């Protein structure tokens, strides 16, 4: 399908509108607090990198950034890896309790966090996972693993069953078939799932900040410094916000070809 002119104009307009608040965030990050509160400025009159420099010179921010990246990466890899065989099983086989189990997975995303969070922290404290990177990565599996199973199941369903059968007849063992033939076929599903796992783990704040105290303090926790007794540090928060977008943007840049990968039948 060719992209028509109307589609091009529509996309451009959508992207421009989408970018306005983000432009505002960048704008705010380049201004001082007094400047932000004093009046409307479409362009920063005296742009300053002061807050960015402050963030980069503070070991707490750098450490927190590394911590966040580490648990998000662990979580993404674990979630996608355990979800792949499960998604295949749910789509291809009938087994005792399959439908209920599949729906039960989703119910783990439904709990209102305010009350459920308290016993959650007690549990992690009791088993010694409090204030560890692995603890946060594991906690985020609660919502990312079900999400990954659900998204991947949809993409597994898009692959015709005949392909599995043909591969079996051609003498492929199951693991070899799964890795060599099947995974490339659902590459766009894996790409988009990996991105969503990364994203949901990256922006999650309640569990990440409350499950940690010092060693594994995530970026979001250090960010709360912007809300101090002396009032809001708008431009510091904006600068930190701009920086938090970067890793996710890099991730989607790397998986872009997978997400946009066309499905060509018969090239198995």
């Amino acid at each position, binding site marked *: 399908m060719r992209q028509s002119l109307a589609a091009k104009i529509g996309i451009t307009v959508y992207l421009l509108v989408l970018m306005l608040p983000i432009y505002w965030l960048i704008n705010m990050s380049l201004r001082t607090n007094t400047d932000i509160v004093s009046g409307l400025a479409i362009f920063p009159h005296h742009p300053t990198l002061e807050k960015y420099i402050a963030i980069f010179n503070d070991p707490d921010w750098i450490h927190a950034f590394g911590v966040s990246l580490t648990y998000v990466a662990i979580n993404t890899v674990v979630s996608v890896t355990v979800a792949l065989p499960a998604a295949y099983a749910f789509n291809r086989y009938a087994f005792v309790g399959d439908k209920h189990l599949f729906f039960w997975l989703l119910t783990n995303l439904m709990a209102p966090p305010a009350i459920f969070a308290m016993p959650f922290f007690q549990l992690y404290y009791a088993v010694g996972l409090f204030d560890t990177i692995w603890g946060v990565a594991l906690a985020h599996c609660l919502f990312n693993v079900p999400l990954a*199973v659900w998204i991947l199941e949809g993409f597994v369903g898009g692959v015709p069953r005949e392909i599995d059968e043909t591969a079996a007849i051609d003498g492929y063992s199951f693991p070899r078939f799964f890795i060599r033939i099947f995974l490339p076929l659902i590459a766009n599903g894996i790409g988009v799932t990996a991105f969503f796992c990364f994203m949901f783990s990256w922006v999650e704040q309640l569990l990440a900040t409350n499950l940690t105290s010092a060693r594994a303090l995530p970026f979001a926790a250090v*960010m709360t410094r912007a809300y101090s007794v002396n009032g809001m540090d708008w431009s510091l928060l904006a600068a930190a916000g701009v920086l938090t977008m970067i890793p996710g943007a890099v991730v989607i840049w790397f998986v872009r070809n997978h997400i946009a990968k066309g499905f060509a039948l018969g090239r198995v």
Partner: protein
Amino acid sequence: MTTKPVNNYAWFFVLPVLAFVMFSSIIPAMTVVNYSVQDTLGANSFFWNGDTAFRALLNPTTEIGARFNDALFRTLAFSLTCLLIEVPLGILVALCLPRKGWAVGISLVLIALPMLIPWNVIGTIWQIFTRADIGLFGAALTGLGLPYNVTQNTISAWSTIVVIDVWHWTPLVVLLSYAGLRAIPDAYYQAARIDGASRWATFANIELPKLQKVLVIAVLLRFMQTFMIYTEPFVVTGGGPGSATTFLSIDLVKIALGQVDLGNGAAMSLVYYLITLTVCWVFYTIMTQLERRRDA
């Protein structure tokens, strides 16, 4: 559609998933059930309270029941509004996105950006962005002569939260739909072209049915998130003006943490949880039935 072969060994494929999810889910959930039937006088002294908290909550003549009733309808209306805007818009954008070339990567990155910002920062950007004196959005609307005021005007507050949610989360629908569209084999489009199908017919008969599974996930996710929306109204409107944007989660936090009422808070959590579960289950069952009927 051929029926799936029965194979109970498939359980082994699912076990790792179960282990990871159950570790974090069972004990907290049971503890909440435990709280919901108890009352506390603080300092860890709990006593049995039976179903009192549930009765009060579901009876609209009590104070807490009336609050719950109002917040529930407000939240349902909000979820529905967001879904009705985000899903069609998301599909439309996904259809319009380029399919190959340099523009693909850039479009995808830009579309993903709003989702990558931590939620408290999103609230804070919009808090400034919607102010009439120092924010672009607020200044533009006031400049057009609209009576726009997030903290005092109910319609402004409501529509602002909807706009924030649409801005923030339509990209999720776009990305899912786009990946789903790309997973449709080319052969289907070729067949449509040979049959001389119109653009609309191609969409309604090929693309939409093939997108169904992805869209079910998008709708369920968006429903669950909008139903439990907290950060945006908390930061931008504080639940006001009056109680215009006091959605369920805001009310819950006020009761559970503000008034330190664990029993009522836990009962409320469980009731929300069951409502979400029921709505999702009904929606999911209908969609699965539709799919089965189409394939039959």
